[in-house]
Structure formats: C-alpha cells, structure tokens
C-alpha cells in the first residue's frame, strides 16, 4: 500500500483558525518538523519516533484496504437528555464539537476489509470532547459489533479517549456495560476482536471494550490506564515514576500483547486478522 498517498488530502480537523502552521515542534525531541514531512510520515516524528495524534479519518485510511471503507457511523446523534450545564450547556458544546470535527459524535467507523479480511473498523476521535464515550459512542460501537457478528466480520477499534462522558452521567457509565456485552455477539460467532490503544486511552473506555480485545495492541508512548495521572498523584501525594502508564510500561505489566509502531500497524493488524478470522485460513487445511 502506498502510505504516502494517505495524506494527500489536507487535514480538515484542527478547527476554526485557518493560519497555516507550516512547522511543528516535536514535544519529545523538540525538533522543528515541517508539517508535510510529519504527515507523510504518518504523524510520527522523523527524528525520534514520537507518535503525534492522528485524525480518525487518517486512521481509517491507514488501516482499511484501499477503497474498501464504507462509513456506517453518523446515523445517531447525541442529545442532552439530562440538561447538563457546567460552564456552558452540553447542547452548545455538542454543536461546537460537531462543527469542529464534522462528526455527530466522537466516533467514526464502518465496514471495510483489512488485509483482505472483512471487518468493522471504529476509530475514536479525540478532537470531539476528548474522545469521551457517551450514548452515541456506545450505540455506534454496539451496532458495529452487532453488524460484525451478523455479517461475519472481524471487529477492530482504535481508542483515543479520556473515558466516559461526564455530561451524560449515569448514561455514559452504562455504555461501559453495553459495549462490553456487545462484544459477546462476536464471541458467539467466533469472530476476532482486535483493540488498538492510541494516546490516550483512559477511564471508562480502557475499563470496558478497549481492554477486552482478543488481541490488544498499543502505539508507542500512549498514555493508558484507568485513573488519570493527576488523580493518582492526588491520591498518593507523590510523583509518578518515569514511564508510568505508558504503553511500554503496560506491556511489561502484562496488559498488552504488543506495542506496535504506527508504520507497522497495518501489517501487524492484517496478519492477526488473517490468523484469527475464518476467511484468513483459520479453519483451513
């Protein structure tokens, strides 16, 4: 696959201002990087390998086989069932995020093939309310898992989320149970589920569907955990150890199957799906 072609389209996310930032500073090595070079390199710092966040659309382009993706997300739209208001009404916030991302909520997904294997692929959008999971994210993922089960597809999620969405309160919490239980539809049909954790994957997303992949992959350096580092620091009243809650740490702690560089992600994912999906020769002779 020609990875270079992935980024031909200009990124539309990034919001209101239209001043073109041609250069970026890498937060890890502080190198000045020409933005187009970064994009051509899958948003990975060419100097040090630091993985920048990547838009949901580009993730899909990276992982789905060319021209195979058909979006299914977007049919349901969020509502402010609790009339939640903090410094701004939830309804207003929703509209702002929708304008900014062009999505109805923090998830983007649909059907595709990956390395030839039929799949449902869902990517969380961190730009929409920190990728938080409310009713719509839960419903989209559930429908995705159900569709995968009924059509014999593998299920793949890419998480990038601060956790459950506070503004939907108990309804957000329930999405943890809902998405987790939806995975059993795949289980019944012996279809594989691969969970990919990108930076960050925390809270109620890690503690539900994201942790439960038959195979769980993570990108290098991603922040992954249940409680956020700030909360933990408050609890224990001391600084956190270097590298704590990063992918590499969690790999050592036995929580991840592999930490995979973005450049290798498609190939690794495709290989796993081919091994675990019936059409990839799983039951072949």
């Amino acid at each position: 696959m020609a990875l270079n072609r992935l980024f031909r389209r200009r990124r539309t996310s990034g919001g209101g201002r239209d001043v073109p930032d041609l250069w970026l500073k890498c937060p890890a090595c502080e190198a000045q990087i020409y933005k187009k070079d970064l994009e051509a390199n899958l948003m990975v710092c060419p100097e040090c390998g630091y993985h920048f966040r990547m838009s949901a659309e580009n993730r899909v382009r990276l992982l789905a086989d060319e021209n195979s993706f058909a979006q299914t997300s977007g049919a349901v739209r969020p509502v402010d069932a609790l009339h939640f208001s903090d410094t701004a009404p939830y309804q207003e916030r929703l509209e702002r995020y929708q304008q900014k991302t062009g999505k109805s909520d923090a998830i983007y997904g649909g059907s595709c093939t990956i390395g030839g294997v039929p799949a449902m692929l869902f990517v969380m959008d961190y730009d929409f309310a920190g990728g938080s999971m409310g009713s719509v994210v839960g419903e989209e993922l559930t429908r995705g898992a159900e569709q995968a089960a009924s059509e014999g597809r593998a299920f793949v999620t890419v998480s990038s989320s601060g956790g459950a969405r506070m503004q939907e309160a108990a309804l957000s919490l329930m999405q943890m149970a809902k998405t987790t239980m939806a995975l059993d539809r795949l289980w019944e049909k012996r279809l594989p589920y691969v969970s990919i954790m990108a930076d960050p994957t925390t809270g109620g997303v890690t503690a539900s569907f994201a942790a439960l992949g038959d195979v769980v992959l993570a990108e290098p350096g991603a922040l992954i955990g249940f409680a956020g580092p700030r909360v933990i620091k408050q609890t224990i009243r001391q600084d956190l150890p270097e590298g704590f809650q990063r992918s590499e740490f969690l790999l050592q702690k036995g929580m991840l199957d592999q930490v995979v560089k973005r450049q290798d992600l498609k190939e690794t994912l495709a290989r796993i799906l081919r091994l675990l999906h019936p059409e990839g020769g799983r039951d072949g002779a």
Partner: protein
Amino acid sequence: MALEFEQPILELEARIRELNEYAEEKGVDLGDEIELLQRKLDSLQKEVFSGLSRWQRVQLARAPGRPTTLDVLQTIFEDFTELHGDRAFADDPAIVAGIARFAGRSVAVAGHQKGKTTKDNIHRNFGMPHPEGYRKAMRMMDLADRFSMPFISLIDTPGAYPGISAEERGQAWVIAQSIQRMGRLRVPAIAVILGEGGSGGALAIGVGNRVLIMENAWYSVISPESCAAILWHDASQAERAADALRLTARDLKELGVVDEIVKEPAGGAHRDPQASMRELSKTISATLEELSGMNPDELLQDRYRRFRGMGAFDSG
C-alpha cells in the same frame, strides 16, 4: 458524627428523651408537652427528609452507621461463609465475597466493604478495591455458574482505587473483565446499590438482570466532588455537581438505570439499619422470585436487552 441537616432533629429527639426520663424519675405527668414535641418532631422530620437535596442524599449514603455489605450478609442472609482471595496475588479486604443462603436457597455474593472505624477503614481501603478484589468477585461468579446459584452483588464504593499499585496490576482490565464476566452469568444476577455507587468500580459488579438501589444511595459516572473539581475547578461545588449528575435513586429510576428503589426509614438507613435491611430482604426476595422463571439463555438475553437499551440519542 451527625450530618448537618440531621442536627435539629437529633436535638429534638434528645429533648423528648430527656423529658421522658425526667417525667419517669420524678413521677410527674409531662404527656402533653411530650406529645407536642413529638408532633413537632414528626413535622420537622417530614420537612427535612421529604425535601432532601441530592447532595444531602449523598451524605446519607455515606453516613456512619449505614448498613455495610457485611452487615447485610450477616443479617438477611443465613450461613454466610466468607471466601477469600483471588488465586493470583492477594486477598483484597475492600471486597468481601462468599456463599450463603437466602430465602432457603444457596447464593454467591460479593460486595464492597467499608470500615466502621478509622482503623478498619484503612484496612478496607475505604471500600476502594484493587484488581484483586474484582478477581475475587469473579471467582464468586464462577462458583455461581458452576453450582447454579443466583449471584447477588452489594455495591458500596467511592470508586475503584486510583493508585499506582492498582494501575500496575491492571485496574482497567479487571473492571472490564468483571463487567464481561457478570454479563455472561447463566444464573439470576441481582445488583444492589447499598450506599455509594462510584463509577466503573461500582459497575464492575453492577451488571444484574435487575439493579436495585437503596433510597438514599447514589450511583454515578463520577463522584460529585471529582466532577466539581473538573468542571468548576472547585470541589466545594459538589452540591451543584450532584444536581447536574442526577445521581439519586429517583433520578436513576427515571433514566432507566435502576429497576427498583428500596425504601429507607425516615432519616436514612443508618437511623434504623434493621428495618432498612428487612426492606431490602423483601425486595431481593421478590426480585429473585421474578427471575426464577427464566432459564440460563433467557437470563443472558434479558441482561443483554437491559443494558443494550441504555442511552439517550436521536436516531432521526
């Protein structure tokens, strides 16, 4: 240790007690005065407890003397036999678990345990489990399935412990696993929110066919204090957060998150633990009865349908 809004009631009660004692001691008749005060007390109680704010209910849910999981297991269950350990790393005192008899039939149980004293609370980590606690709960779910016993969980936690030790042993993973395991039970599963239902740490053992809640318990995606700290950078806005989060039993019933509210005595369960546990016992009993007609596949489907329907969105 009384809550602020309980104060006037407690004072009035104390005065009635004093008068009664005085009357008895001195042999004088203070019947009229006492009756008057008693009536005043009744109306004061009504006033205070009928108009409880969400934040006041949160405080009742945390009140010392409120029945804990162990109280419930030792009171309305018979032959409670505590079983320890996760068979992998440790026994977590923040979750108690075991087998027991309820209304004549064997059941498996697990619940968060808070301490009654400071020392006990430290031992119990204030009811905030480590991964080991949830693994112990999952062992009980395994036992429940293996021996066709209903599984009953008792929820009373500010949340799963947010510390290094818990993170490095996979707190998120174990909560997800526990949600999944409970969802897969092939026996009746009942979750009871006894006091505090703090986020994923509560939900981990909250995947019941029916979810019951004590009248003054709360259940939320985040505690009011943490919510306030995030939204207004000010934990003292917890009262406002409690309202925004709609975290009381009645709110949750309206949202479809819980199925049944267990009435507490006026003033909260801690004012009459025995009565409130009797009430809970009746509700669990009726709920078990209701579920007993379903076979394992039906129970699975019923549970999936229950949680599948959660959420509010516009499919227009």
